[in-house]
C-alpha cells in the first residue's frame, strides 16, 4: 500500500493506462505543459507528448465533442474539465452525444469517454466557481457518474472508467486533491457500481459521497464517543446508478437514515436515496429520513455567508440527534 495524495492517485491511473494503451489520451485546459490545475496530469506531457496529452483552447463544448467523436473510433479520451462550473458548456455534447449514441444507433456506436472534473465549493470562489452539480449528471440515461471520496477510489474508479465501454463522468472535489490515503501497490479496479461501507455501525446509517463522506465519518466518531450512538457510514461513490441493494441492506440493519450532501436539496442525491428507500424498504424505517444539504442560494463570496450556506459534520451530528429525539 502506498500512502499518496488524491491527485497522485489520479495521475497514476492516467499514467498506467496511457502506458498500456496508445489509444488512451487526455485533454483539457492547462493539463499538458502546465501539468494540470490540480496536478492530476503532471509529467504526462513530457512522457507521452502533445499528440496524446492535449492542451486545449478554452472551448469546452468543442473539445468535449471532439473527444467523443474520437471515442467513436475506439480512442479512449480522458477529458479534464478544469472546474465543474465550466461543464455546463460541455453538457450538450456529453448528454446529447456521448450518453445517447449507443442507444440511438442501436448499439453501433459507443462513446467510451471519461470526463473528469473538479466539483464542490472550495473557499470563497463565489457564485460561478462553487457549484455542486452531481444532481445534473446523475439523471442522464447512458451516462455513469462516480465520485471518489479518497485516493483509492480516485485511482480505482478512473482505471475502471477508462476500461469501461460507457461514458463515465467523474466528479472530483477541489478541496480533496491533497488528501492522502492508502492505494494498493498493484493494479486495482474499483467497481463502478455499488457503494462502500466506510464505517460499520448499527444504530443509524449516514449516507454520504465525495466530501460529505468525511463529514459523516467525523460525525460518526463524535456520535460514538459523546453520545454512544453507533453510526454506519455508507459511501455512495456511484451516483448513477445508485446502489439500491447497498442502501436497502444498511437501512434494514439500522432503521434510521441521514443523507449528507454538499449539493442543494431539490432533486438531489438525498431525494433520490429517500425515493429508493421508499421503494425498497419503507417498512424498515423507524423514523423519517433526514437530509443535510446546502442552502438553495448561489454561493456567496463572503466567508461567513459561505460557511452558513454549506453544511459540515456538526450538521450531521445535529441531524442524528434530532432523529433520536435528543436534539
Amino acid at each position: 500500500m502506498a500512502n499518496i495524495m488524491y491527485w497522485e492517485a489520479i495521475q497514476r491511473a492516467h499514467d498506467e493506462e496511457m502506458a498500456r494503451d496508445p489509444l488512451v489520451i487526455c485533454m483539457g485546459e492547462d493539463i499538458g505543459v502546465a501539468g494540470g490545475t490540480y496536478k492530476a496530469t503532471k509529467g504526462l506531457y513530457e512522457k507521452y507528448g502533445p499528440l496524446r496529452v492535449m492542451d486545449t483552447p478554452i472551448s469546452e463544448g468543442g473539445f468535449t465533442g471532439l473527444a467523443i467523436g474520437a471515442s467513436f473510433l475506439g480512442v479512449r479520451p480522458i477529458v479534464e474539465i478544469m472546474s465543474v462550473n465550466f461543464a455546463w458548456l460541455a453538457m450538450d455534447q456529453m448528454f446529447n452525444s456521448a450518453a445517447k449514441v449507443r442507444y440511438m444507433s442501436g448499439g453501433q456506436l459507443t462513446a467510451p469517454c471519461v470526463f473528469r472534473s473538479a466539483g464542490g465549493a472550495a473557499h470563497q470562489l463565489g457564485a460561478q466557481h462553487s457549484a455542486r452539480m452531481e444532481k445534473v449528471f446523475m439523471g442522464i440515461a447512458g451516462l455513469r457518474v462516480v465520485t471518489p471520496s479518497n485516493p483509492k477510489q480516485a485511482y480505482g474508479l478512473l482505471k475502471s472508467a477508462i476500461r469501461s465501454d460507457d461514458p463515465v463522468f467523474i466528479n472530483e472535489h477541489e478541496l480533496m486533491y491533497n488528501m492522502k490515503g492508502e492505494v494498493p501497490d498493484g493494479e486495482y479496479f474499483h467497481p463502478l457500481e455499488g457503494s462502500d461501507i466506510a464505517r460499520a455501525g448499527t444504530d443509524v446509517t449516514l449516507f454520504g459521497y465525495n466530501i460529505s463522506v468525511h463529514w459523516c465519518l467525523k460525525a460518526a466518531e463524535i456520535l460514538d464517543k459523546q453520545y454512544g450512538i453507533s453510526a454506519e457510514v455508507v459511501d455512495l461513490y456511484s451516483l448513477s446508478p445508485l446502489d439500491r441493494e447497498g442502501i436497502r441492506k444498511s437501512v434494514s440493519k439500522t432503521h434510521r437514515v441521514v443523507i449528507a450532501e454538499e449539493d442543494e436539496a431539490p432533486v438531489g442525491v438525498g431525494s433520490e436515496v429517500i425515493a429508493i428507500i421508499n421503494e425498497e424498504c419503507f417498512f424498515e424505517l423507524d423514523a423519517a429520513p433526514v437530509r443535510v444539504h446546502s442552502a438553495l442560494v448561489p454561493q456567496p463570496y463572503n466567508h461567513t455567508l459561505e460557511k452558513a450556506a454549506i453544511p459540515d459534520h456538526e450538521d450531521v451530528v445535529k441531524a442524528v440527534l434530532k432523529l433520536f429525539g435528543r436534539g
Partner: protein
Amino acid sequence: MKIEDKKRVLREMVLHRRFEERCYQAYIERKIGGFLHLYPGQEACCNGVMEAARPGHDYVITGYRDHVHAIKCGADPKEVMAELYGKETGSSKGRGGSMHIFDAAHRFMGGYALVGGPFPLAAGIAKAIQLKGGDEIAICFLGDAANNQGVFHETMNMAALWKLPVLFVCENNLYGIGTSIERSTAVVHQHKRVAAYNIPADECDGQDIDIVYEHARKAVEHVRAGNGPFFLELMTYRYRGHSMSDARGYRSREEEETWKQRDPILMLRDRLITAGAMTMADYEALEKETDAYIENDVIKFSEESPEPRVEDLEKYVFADRETQLPWLTGKAA
C-alpha cells in the same frame, strides 16, 4: 487627448496600479479570499478605450479581471475594495467577490467568471440600446483566449447581422492562464477572426495610451454612429500571474522584462515630463498621495465596514416576495 486629460488619466492609472498592488498585499494577509486576478501592465487598454468612450454613460462588461474596469466606469474604489473584503458595503454587497464586481448605477454591468460568457451579454445590452434608441454603446472587454469559445463566433455573427452597437475590445496579453496563444489559437492576431462576419477590426499597441486612445476613438465613433459592431485588439501583457497561485513557469523572466520596458504608466509619465507638464517630483508626490488615499480611505473603509448578516443569506436570490405576489399567487388584477 488634451494635456490636462493626460494628467488626469495618469493619476487614474497610478491609482489603478496601486489599488491592484494593494489587493495583492491584502490577499497575502488573507483579507481577500477566493480567486484574485490583477490588472498591472494592462492599464492603457481600459483607460485608453474608456477615454475615447463615455464612462458611466456607455455600458461596460468584462470577465473576472474586473476591478479597474469598474473603477474606470465610476465605481468607488472604496466599494470595490470592500467587495474584495466581502463586506456589506461592497459593490456587490459582499456576495460577489473579486470576479463579480457590479455597479449598475455607473453602467458597469459586471465581471463574469466563465470565459466567453460576456460576449452574448454585451450583444444583448447593445440590442436593448438599439431598441430604446439611446446614443450609448456597449463595450465588452475580454481576453484573447476567450475567443476560442464557440459563443464568440455566435455573438459576432448576431452582432453583425443585427448591426448592434457593441465594441468588442480584445486585451491580447498573449496567455490564457499558463497556455501561450500560439499553443491554443491558430491565429495569434485576433482581429483577423472577425473578418468572416464582416466586422471591421483594428489592432494596435496596448501599452501606449496615446495609441490606444487614437484607435479607440475611431472604433467608438464607428459604433456610436450606428454602423454596427467593431472589434479592437490591443496587444498587451499582464505582469503578474494569472491569479494568485501562479509561478509563471510558462514564460521567461526576460520576456517579462522586455514588456516592463514599455510600461504604460511610465511611458505616459515620461511623456508628460518631457512636455514640461509635470516633474519627477510631481510624479513621486502623486504616488505618495495615491498610496495615502488607498490606505486612509479605501482600506480603512473596507476594514471598518460590517459583514453581511447571516440572516440575509437568501436575500437577492429572488425578487422581494411582496413585490411579486400578484404573479406568484395568480391574483393579478
